[in-house]
């Protein structure tokens, strides 16, 4: 009886480890979807420039996302977005998808392409 219990614990542990993702996993995913390698330089330009809306990504996240930012409207503090400064970033697929969906809509009035996501993430990963 004890063995199946241990076995199921081991299985669920293995499952939770498999679910935990790293920023690199997301970069790989976006590059695969885009069918091309990411460009950190292009990502930095995308992040800091406007795309037809009032805000850019950097309006809230600043141009140095190893630092914290502030919401451009509500003034609420925002924790650093760069994984080097905030280990919680880009580790949860539901959150990553939710924030890209919302923020691309706010900044560009559309969904972002896989290439844009890959580029931005590559740039964020390069911020130390």
């Amino acid at each position: 009886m004890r063995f199946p219990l241990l076995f199921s614990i081991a299985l669920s542990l293995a499952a939770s480890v498999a679910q935990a993702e790293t920023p690199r996993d997301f970069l790989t995913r976006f590059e695969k979807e885009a069918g091309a390698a990411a460009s950190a330089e292009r990502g930095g330009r995308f992040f800091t420039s406007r795309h037809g809306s009032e805000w850019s990504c950097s309006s809230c996240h600043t141009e140095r996302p190893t630092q914290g930012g502030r919401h451009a409207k509500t003034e609420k503090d925002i924790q650093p977005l760069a994984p080097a400064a905030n280990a919680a970033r880009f580790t949860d697929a539901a959150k990553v998808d939710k924030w890209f969906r919302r923020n691309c809509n706010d900044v560009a009035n559309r969904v972002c392409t896989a290439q844009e996501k890959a580029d931005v993430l590559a740039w964020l990963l390069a911020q130390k």
Partner: protein
Amino acid sequence: MKRTLVLLLAAASFPALADRYVVPKHAAFEEECASCHMAYPPQMLDAHSWQHLMNNLPKHFGTDASLDEKRRVAIADFLGKNAGGRKTGVTADAKGNPLIRITETERFVRKHRQIADAVWQRPAIKSKANCTACHTTAAEGNYSDDNVRIPR
């Protein structure tokens, strides 16, 4: 007579009680609603207002605050159950349309009538949505005058 006196004394010793909101714990509400602004107490709008707000999250005060449907329903349900109350009353405009800005509700306007525009515009405040700028204990649901410090 004696009982009235006791009640009056009790009311006088807790003038701040009326400005405290007890918000039940709700993980999804706290996580989702407090990512871009503080989690405003559900009691500050009536159920009709919350329903209207939660049905329009993709256009939430000019930003996309959309949620997956399961979470949206769970939070809408929580807000509906804890909405409003006697102090808040009906939160609708003169035509009866639900208000979604707490700052436009009768209670908010009345409570802040002495705050000049120039004060709202101070760099440390900037937005009427920034409760904690002045209400130092707002995050705990305590909006008592005793804990107000208006930044210069």
